[in-house]
C-alpha cells in the first residue's frame, strides 16, 4: 500500500551539503530506500516539496541566522522522529569557529560593501534549539551509519552506533598505533568511532571528524601531545576544527589558549 509508507524529509541549514549527499552516494541502496519510504521533501534531490507531517526527518547543518532559528521549530513541529546528520547539526560545524571570537572581528576583514545582514554571533547545533531524537556524528557522516539509522527507524528499533573511541577501530583493522609507533599526534583516543579509523590507515593522525567520544580524557591526551612536542597553539587548533564547539573539545582548547 503506497500510502502506508513512512515519509522521509531532509532539511539543510548552514553546511556544505555533504551529509545529505551521503544519501545520494548510497548508490547501491538508494532505490531500495526510495522504495521503502516516501521521500516527501529533499530539495537537493527533488522539486517535490511536502508540507509534513513527516515520520522521519534528517537535518543537516547548524543554526546561524535568526530565520533558521525559527525554521527549525517549524520543522520540529512536523517531525515525528528527528535525526541530526553530521558535525554541523550535532556540534555547530566548522562555522562554529566564530564562537571563539567576536563575529565583528570577521567584519573587520575586507568586505565589498558594508551592509547589515542577519547572522547570529554563534553557530549552534540543532539540539540547542529543539529536541533531537537521535544524533549522527561525522564530517561527513558514514553512509553505513546513515543506512543503519534509516533501517532501524523502519524496523522500529534504536539505531546501533558506537560510543567508543577511534582506537578500537584501529585495533580491529590491525593498524599500528601511529602515536606509539611513529610519534604522530593523533586525536583517535578522544574521538568517537564511526569512520573505521580511516586516517591512521593513511599514516596520519585522526583529526576528529566525528567529535568527542563518550567521556573523553582530553587532558591526558593533551599532555601526551605536549610530550610529542606539539606546541599549545597547534593543540588548540587541533581541538578546534569541525567539532570545535563540542563541549569536551571546546573546554580543552580553552585551557591551552
Amino acid at each position, binding site marked *: 500500500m503506497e500510502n502506508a509508507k513512512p515519509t522521509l524529509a531532509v532539511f539543510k541549514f548552514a553546511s556544505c551539503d*555533504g551529509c545529505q549527499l551521503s544519501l545520494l552516494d548510497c548508490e547501491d541502496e538508494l532505490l531500495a530506500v526510495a522504495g521503502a519510504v516516501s521521500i516527501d521533501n529533499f530539495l537537493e534531490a527533488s522539486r517535490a516539496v511536502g508540507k509534513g507531517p513527516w515520520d522521519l526527518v534528517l537535518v543537516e547543518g547548524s543554526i546561524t541566522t535568526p530565520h533558521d532559528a525559527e525554521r527549525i521549530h517549524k520543522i520540529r513541529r512536523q517531525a515525528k522522529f528527528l535525526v541530526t546528520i553530521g558535525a554541523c547539526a550535532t556540534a555547530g560545524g566548522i562555522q562554529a569557529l566564530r564562537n571563539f571570537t567576536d563575529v565583528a572581528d570577521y567584519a573587520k576583514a575586507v568586505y565589498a560593501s558594508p551592509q547589515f545582514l542577519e547572522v547570529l554571533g554563534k553557530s549552534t547545533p540543532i539540539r540547542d534549539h529543539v529536541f533531537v531524537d537521535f544524533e549522527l556524528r561525522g564530517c561527513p557522516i558514514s553512509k553505513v551509519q546513515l543506512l543503519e539509522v534509516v533501517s532501524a527507524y523502519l524496523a522500529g528499533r534504536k539505531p546501533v552506533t558506537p560510543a567508543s573511541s577511534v582506537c578500537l577501530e584501529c585495533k580491529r583493522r590491525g593498524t599500528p598505533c601511529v602515536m606509539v609507533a611513529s610519534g604522530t599526534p593523533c586525536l583517535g583516543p578522544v574521538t568517537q568511532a564511526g569512520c573505521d579509523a580511516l586516517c591512521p590507515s*593513511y599514516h596520519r593522525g585522526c583529526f576528529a571528524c566525528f567529535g568527542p567520544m563518550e567521556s573523553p580524557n582530553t587532558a591526558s591526551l593533551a599532555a601526551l601531545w605536549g610530550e610529542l612536542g606539539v606546541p599549545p597553539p597547534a593543540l588548540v587548533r587541533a581541538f578546534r576544527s569541525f567539532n570545535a564547539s563540542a563541549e569536551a573539545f571546546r573546554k580543552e582548547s580553552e585551557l591551552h589558549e
Partner: protein
Amino acid sequence: MSKVRTITVNALARVEGEGGLKVRVRAGKVQEVRLDIYEPPRFFEAFLKGRALGEAPDLTARICGICPVAYQMSSVHAMEAACGADPGPRVRALRRLLYCGEWIESHVLHAAMLHAPDFLGYESALHMAKDHPEAVTLSLRLKKAGNEIVTAVGGREIHPVNVRVGGFWRAPSAAELAPLVPKLETARGEAVALLKWASGFTFPDLDLHHELVSLRHSSEYPLNEGRIVSSEGLDIAASEWEQHFEEEHVQRSNALHARRKGGGIIQTGPLARYTLNFDRLPAAIQAAAQEAGLGRECRNPFKSILVRCVETLWAIDEALAILRTYEPPGPSFVEVVPREAVGAAATEAPRGLLFHRYRIGGDGLIKEARIVPPTAQNLRAMEADLRGFVQNHLDLAEDRLTLLCEQVVRNHDPCISCATHFLKLKIDRD
C-alpha cells in the same frame, strides 16, 4: 499587454545550497531578474586566517560536499606555489586521477540525477526511476565508479583524508588501484550510453555570448593546471586572476558576483572548458561529442548536460590512462618548507574555475585567504540567461515558464553553499 507577471521560486531544488528566484515582467518586458541567495555565510576566509598552511586542504574541503577535491587541489597548488615546492610527476598523476573521480561523480550526479529530470518532466531522479529504470540504475553505477576512484585514492568519497600539501599522506599501491581498471572499463560503456540517452532530449533554444573563461594547458584538457584564457582573448597566469577579475557585493545576495574588470558577464564551467579546449580532447572523445550533436563550440546552456556527459567520458579515459601506467610516488610527498610568500592557483572544479590565493607567514600560518568559487563567477551569467530566456518565451504558460526558469539556473549546476561560504559581513551589534 500591461499586466505584471511574476515568476517566483521560493526555494530552488536540485541545486546545492539554498537560493530562490524571482522574475518580474511588465508590459511584455522583463524588468527584474533576481537570483536570491539566502544560504547563510560560513566565513571560511575569515577563520582560515591563523591556521597552519597544511590545514588548508582539510578545512577548505568543507566548503563543498559535492566537490571537496576541487578545494583540496586548488589549495595544495596555491600553498606549493607559495613555498616553491614541486611534488613531481607521480604525485601530479595521482592528483589528476583523484580529480577525475570527482568529475565523474559530480558530473553524473548533476547530469543524470539533478538535470535530466527537467528534460523529461519529473520532480526528481527517484520519481524518474519508475519510467526510466535503466538510465537511473546505469547512472548510479557510473557515479559509483567515480566515487570509487575518490575513495581508493582519497580514503572516502566526501571530504577525502589523503590529500596533503606536498603530495599524499600515503600513496596507494598499484595493487590497491588495480581493481578500478575493470570497473572503469565497464563505466566507459555506461558513459557512452548516458551521453546517447541525453542526446535524445529536446533542448530549448538559448544561445549566449558571455565571455567564456577556463584554464588551458599546453597539451591536455584542463584540470589541475594551465593558463587562464577566455573567448575574448585573455591569456594570463592563474596568479594574475585578481588583476583581471573582480567581485562585486550585490545588495540582495549573500554571495559575491565576479566579473571581468571593465568587462561584461563571464561564464566558467563545462561550456567554457569545452569551447575553449575542444582541440585538447582526444579524437575519440571529439567524435563522441559530435555524434551526440555537439559542435566544436557549445553556447547553449541547456546542452551543458551533453558537455558534462562528454567530460565524464573524457575523465574515465584519463583515469584509465593514469591507472594503466601507475607507479606509486615514493616518497608520497615532498617536505614543504614554509616561507613568507603569496601563492595562488586555479584548477577546474566540475562547475568551473576555482581560484585560491593565500598569503602565508614564515611561521607557516595563513595571514590572508581568498577563495573564488565557480558559482560566484557564474551568478551574473545565470541572471542574464534568465532575462534572455524569459523575454523570448513570454507566450509560455506560467507553470511551464517557471519550470524552464528553474532549469535555466540548473543548467549551470550552481553550488550555492560554495558561493556563499566566504562573505565578509558587517554585523550591527548593540
